[in-house]
């Protein structure tokens, strides 16, 4: 490449900086603020480990969702997916052991995702609606299968995955790291990543360029299932149970919030896995900080909503400064 000097206006410089470091800055500000005000209770290694470990719940599930939203699609059924996969896996574990249970959970979730993908591509029902219907259906199936009894998880292997430590770090952190590494790899190095962005930007153009749009979409929905399955495994482990009614309650909104907060546009075509991860951490760090500060619960709710709006506004500010059309 020749040396083309790109001169940015001051506005654009600010925007570029915001884009690269915006989320990290927010995370550090939140962490710094609570560390200064709460000192020992917040700013200690154990708490940091705890917060990062619990970020894995939303963080891992959000990986698949990031891909999905990048292609311009949507999946609102993941909470129910989590529950159904969780209870099936847990009940399998009771009879066949933890390792089988874990595998069953992930496989079931992947199959459910595949089902969503097939409905969306083959039957041409819009993603939002398909997954809205599945939200009811999966949840109902979870209730029916377990006759509304929570499935307890006691297997040593399974319990270890969510609660154990290795080299001083909680195990979920490793699993989350591994998932993100695999995901980064798929996005950056594998052709699959380019396909996702192409489909999201303009699916007709992508199709004309020879990309099998349908297969990409099916794969993306299946991936949502895979990562939701991993989340279900960790969640079931940490809670020691898979409760058909409560597992994954509100999960879809937490995940979608993390993805959008992380900078992935709902229209599709652009996105950031790193952003998703940072967003998941930001939400947990913020909530934990406010909780520890004994902030009135009602004010916590208000604050959470306001912070969300502010954070996304900053994202908009970034685009405005860069002079890009959003």
């Amino acid at each position, binding site marked *: 490449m020749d040396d083309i000097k790109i001169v940015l206006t001051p506005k654009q410089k600010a925007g570029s900086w915001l884009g690269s470091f915006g989320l990290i800055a927010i995370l550090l500000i939140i962490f710094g603020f609570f560390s200064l005000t709460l000192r020992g209770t917040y700013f200690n290694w154990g708490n940091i480990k705890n917060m990062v470990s619990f970020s894995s719940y939303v963080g891992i599930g959000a990986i698949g969702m990031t891909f999905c939203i990048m292609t311009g699609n949507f999946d609102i059924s993941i909470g129910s997916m989590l529950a159904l996969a969780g209870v099936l896996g847990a009940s399998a574990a009771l009879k066949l052991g933890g390792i089988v249970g874990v595998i069953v959970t992930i496989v079931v979730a992947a199959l459910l995702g595949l089902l969503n993908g097939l*409905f969306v591509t083959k*039957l*041409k*029902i*819009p993603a*939002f*609606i*398909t997954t*809205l*219907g*599945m*939200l*009811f*259906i999966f*949840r*109902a*199936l979870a*209730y*029916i299968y377990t006759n*509304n009894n929570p499935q307890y998880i006691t297997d040593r292997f399974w319990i270890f995955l969510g609660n154990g430590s290795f080299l001083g770090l909680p195990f979920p952190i490793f699993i989350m790291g591994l998932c993100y590494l695999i995901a980064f790899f798929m996005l950056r190095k594998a052709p699959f990543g380019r396909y996702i962005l192409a489909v999201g930007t303009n699916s007709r153009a992508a199709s004309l360029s020879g990309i099998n749009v349908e297969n990409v979409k099916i794969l993306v929905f299946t991936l949502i299932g895979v990562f939701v399955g991993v989340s279900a495994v960790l969640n079931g482990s940490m809670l020691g149970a898979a409760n058909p009614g409560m597992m994954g309650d509100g999960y879809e*909104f937490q995940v*979608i*919030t993390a993805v*959008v*907060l992380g900078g992935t546009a*709902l229209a599709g075509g652009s996105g950031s896995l790193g952003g998703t991860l940072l967003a998941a951490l930001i939400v947990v760090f913020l909530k934990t900080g406010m909780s520890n500060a004994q902030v*009135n*619960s*009602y*004010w*916590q*709710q*208000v*604050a*959470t*909503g*306001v912070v*969300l*709006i502010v954070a*996304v*506004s900053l994202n*908009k500010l970034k685009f405005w400064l860069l002079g890009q059309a*959003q």
Partner: protein
Amino acid sequence: MVKFLKLYEKIGIFILIVAASIFLAIVSPNFRNMDTILSIIMQGSYGAIIAFGMTFAITSGGFDLSVEAVMGLTSVIIAMLIPSLGFAGSIIIAVLASCFVGFLNGILITKVGISPLITTLSMQVILRGASLIITNGRQVVISQKSFMSIGASKAFGFLPMPIIYMAVLFAIFYIILNQTTFGRHVAASGSNEQAAKMSGLNISLIKTVVYILVAFSASIVGVIRTSQTLIGIPTMAPGFTLNVLTIAILGGTSLAGGRGNLIGTLFAGIFISMIYYGLNLLNVQIFYQMLAVGITLLFALFIDGLRMKYLETAKIKGIRV
């Protein structure tokens, strides 16, 4: 096939209702009396009214997830203000406050450019917190019992008021959406925002008014429910937003925007009520009721998908549809 689908477009959801009614009438003797039927429609009216507003929002290309919190806000404002301002005064303030919330939603979505999802989701959380702060976590009892008549009385001795409110609001919203310029503009901005903008439409104004309408419809239901229970409830209707969304979508309003089907929404609201109410009469477990809703949704939109496919290709082929 084309003929069938064209017919379905007009009366699809209606057919579902008729089919379900026949089924329920055969299977449950309690279903057949007028009281029960009116009760089912009444219980459907709460979701339907808000779904009218939601239909507008979806037609304009967005949606509003804050409706259940608007209900709660209305409820607590009324309960706190009735002692000093009386019925009319407190209702007016509550509805105005809700419209202001809708205005905020609209501004954040149009001027600041935040997606409807994040805006309304955040607003939901903020409003719920605000409602709890207003009452300090309590449920505030309304001691003026006559307030109950707003939501609980019956016109002509047998027709529950909520059904009348639903009919009136349906008429108003229908006229706005289908008979006024504004309504056409809403559809235009939903189906192709760029084109609408270039035609000179003030998208910001249009969408903001839409979100005010949604909040307004949610507030009305908040008034009705508060009147019925005589309690200001900060945590009113948890999970109701999903119900409303389902009704709007089941009614045939396309999420792509641009086409709002208020008639469909009306019938969908009644239909959903039939599922929950009717199946309860039959002692069908809640889980199967949820299953029924999900399957109906998929079925209804599968047909919708077929319709779009066949009718669009038929149009392209030049067949008159």
